[in-house]
C-alpha cells in the first residue's frame, strides 16, 4: 500500500514537473504573440479602456 502511494506520488510529481516545464514554454510563446496582438492596432475598438 505504501509502495503504491509512493508510486502514485512520483507519477503526479513527474506529471506536474513536465507539465510546468511545457507550460512555461506556452507562457513565453503566447506572451510573444500577445505583444504582437497588442501592438497591432488595426481593427482596434474605438472604445477607451476602463478607468
Amino acid at each position: 500500500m505504501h509502495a503504491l502511494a509512493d508510486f502514485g506520488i512520483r507519477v503526479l510529481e513527474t506529471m506536474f514537473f513536465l507539465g510546468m516545464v511545457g507550460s512555461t514554454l506556452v507562457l513565453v510563446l503566447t506572451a510573444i504573440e500577445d505583444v504582437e496582438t497588442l501592438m497591432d492596432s488595426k481593427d482596434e475598438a474605438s472604445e477607451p479602456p476602463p478607468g
Partner: protein
Amino acid sequence: MATNQPDPSLSHRVRIVVATSIMLTFISYWRAAAIVLNDLASSAFYAGGIAEQAVGKSAPWFIVGVMLFSFTVRAVYVESCSMFVRGGVYRVVKEALGGTLAKLSVSALMFDYILTGPISGVSAGQYIGGLINEVLATLDTHGWIPGALHDLFGGRPHLNENALSVAFAVAVTGYYWWENTKGIHESSEKSLRVMQITTVMVVLLLGWSAITLLKVGYQPIPWPTPQNLHFNAASLGFLKHSHPSHWLGLFGVLIAFGHSVLAMSGEESLAQVNRELAHPKLKNLKRAAIVIAIYSLVFTGFSSLLSVMLIPDSVRVPIYKDNLIAGLAMYMWGPQLLRLAFRAFVVVVGFLILSGAINTSIIGSNGVLNRVSEDGVLADWFRLPHRKYGTTYRIINLVVLLQLFTILASRGNVYVLGEAYAFGVIWSFTFNGLSMLVLRFKYKGERGWKVPPNLRIFGTEIPLGLASVFLVLLATAVTNLFTKSVATVAGVAFSAAFFVIFSVSERVNLKKHALAEKQMKEHFQLLESDTVERTKLGIRPGNVLVTVRDYNTLSHLRWALEHTDTREQDVVVMSARISQFGAAAYDLSTEQIFSDYEQTLFTRAVSIAESVGKHISLLVVPARDVWSAIVQTANNLESSSVIAGLSSKMTSEEQSMLLGRAWEATAGPKRQFVLQVVPPDLQVHTFKIGPHTPAMKSEDVLLTHRLWLTLTREKELHNLHHHDILTEALTRFARDYAGHDRDDILRELRTLTGKKLRASVLSRDGVPLATPPPETGRRDDDPDRGPSGPPGI
C-alpha cells in the same frame, strides 16, 4: 446557409421558420474583459487568505504562480473558441468525449457555478463585518461608544462576523433570486462600470502600497520551497496521517499549488462571452484574454504578495484572513482616518464585485441548466416559464435553494467554501483540457489558433503545449482529491447527484420527446435557416411583425389580425427564445429552439388565426436580447410595424424606449418602423421607432408659416423656405443644449411634455440624456398629432 425544402406531401402543415443563429448585440473586447473580470477578479478578495491558511506564509508565490499558469489555461480556451464559436466545457467535452463525460463535466461546472454565489456572498459579508467592527473599535478607543452598548455586548461592541456574513449572503442571494425570477436584463455597461471602480481601487492600492514599502519597509515572503510549506490537518485532507516525507518534496509544492487554484476561477466565462465579441472575433478574443490575464495577475497576485509584505504576522491570519485586502488598507502608511476611509472604499468595491458574482452565478447556473434541459437531459418541468415573468423560475429556485443551503451549512466559513469551490474549478478545466487534447487528433475542421508549441514528427503533430497544460491540470485535480477532503466529498456527492438526475431525466425525456416529436411533425413543419430572411418566409415587404411570448396573453395577436388586411400585408408571428449568459456557450439545434413550449405557443397562435380566418407566418429566433432580436428581425423582414402585448414589468413607454435603444445600437442600414403596444384593454399605444418626420401640431405649422411670412420680407431672404427656418431653429436649439442652457431647456421640455418618467428612466440607466435621438421611440398616440401607424392597422 441551409434551408430544408418543404415536402409537398406535408403541405397541409403549418410552416415555421426556425432561425438557428442567435441574434446578438456585439460588444467590444473591453466590455467582454469586464464581464469575465467581474467573476475572475472577485476571487482576489478571498483567494490569498484561503491559500495562506492552507499552506503558510509563502502562499502568495503560489497565487502568483497560479495567475501565471492561468495565462496558459486562457490559451486553451482561446483555442477552443477558435474552433467552436461557443467553445465552453459542455460543447467541447461532448464533441471530444461524448455525452456521458459531457454530463459529468457540466456537473462539475455546476458545482463551480453554485459555489461562486455562497463564497462571494459570505466573503462580502466578512468584509462588511470586519469594517463595522473596526469602526466600532475606533469609536470605542475615542470613548464615543455609549456605556449602554458596552453593557449590552458585555464589553467592547463587536459583531459576529460569521453570522453577519451568513445573513448578508442570504439577503443578497434572496435579492438576486427575485431579480432573476423577474428577469432582469444584464448589461455589459454595468460590468464595465464595476471594473472601472475596481481599477481605481487597484491603482490606489498598488500606489499607496509602494509608498508604504518605501516609508515603512516590508516583511520578506518565504520562497515557495517544500521546507517553507506549513500544512495543517485541514489542508492535508485524507493525507493528514501520511508520512511527512510524502509532502516535503515536489508533491508538497503540488499540494500548495492545488490550494491556490481557486484564484483563477472564472476562465469559463471567457468562452461564454466569445459569442458576443465584435469583429474581428479571434483577435478581439485574444485581446480580451490578455487584458483579463494581466489584470488578474496584477490584482490577485500583487495584492496577495503585498498583504504578506505589509500586514504583520500577528494579525494577518488571526484577524484579516477573510478580508485580506481590507487588512492591507489598514496597514498602509498614513493617518488612521484616511486608512479607514480607504478600507471603506475597499469594502464598497468588494460589495459591488462580489454581489455581482452572486448574480453571475445564478445567471450562469440557470443558463447551463437551461441548456442541458434543452438538450433533453433535464426534465421539461424545470423549464416551464413563470406565469407572470416568463422566466425559468423552477431552475432559478433550485439553484438558489442549493446556494442558500450551502451558505447556511458553511456557517460563514470562507475557508471551507473556498476549498470546496476549488473542486469545481479544477475539474471543469481538466475536462476542457483533456477534450481539447483529444480534439487535436479527432477534430479536422477549422481551427483559428493553436496553443504553442507544436512539434511535427513524421507528419504527425504533437501538441506539446496543450499536453503540458493538461498534465498540470490533471496532476493538480488528482492531488486535490486527496488533500481537500471536504471538497472531494461535497464535490463528488454533488456532481454524482446531478449526473444521476441528468441521466434519469434523459431516459425519461427520450420516450416523451419521441411522442412529442411525432405530434409536432403532424402539425408543424420546421424549416431550419441560419438567418432570418424575408424571402425564406415567403412574405412581402411592409409586413406586420407580432411578437409573442406567453400563450396565456395573446390578445394583441387577435387585435393585430382583426386590424390587418392580410391580402395587403402579411402577418408574421415571432417568438424570441432567449439564451441567457452561460447558455451562449452551446450550440442550439432546431429541436432545442422549437421546444414543447413553442409548440403550445404556436398552436394557440394558429388557433387564433384560424378563428379570425387569416393566414400567419411563424418564426422562432434564438436571441440574447429580446429587443435587439425584434429590431433585427423587423429590419431583415422589412416590416412596417411591430405589434407587442403590454409587458407585465414595464409601461408601453419603457417598452418603446428599450426598442428605440436597440434600434440605435443595431448596425446599419436600418429601416424605421412603428411599434404598437396593445394592452389587455386594447387601448393601443403607438410609437415610431427610428428617425422620422415628426407629426407637427397645427399651431407649430402656423407659427412656422408666420415666421416665414415675416422673414421673407427681410433683405435677401425672399428665397427662404419653411424648412430653412426649422433648420436654423434646430441648429440654435442644439447649440444651446450643448452650452449653458441645457438645464433650462430640459426644465422647459419636462414642463411641456410632462414626461418626467422618461427622463428618470434614462438617468437611472446611466445613459446620457443627449444620447438617444429625440424622435426615437416617441409615443405618438396624441390625437392632435394626426394619423399614425402603418396602413391597415
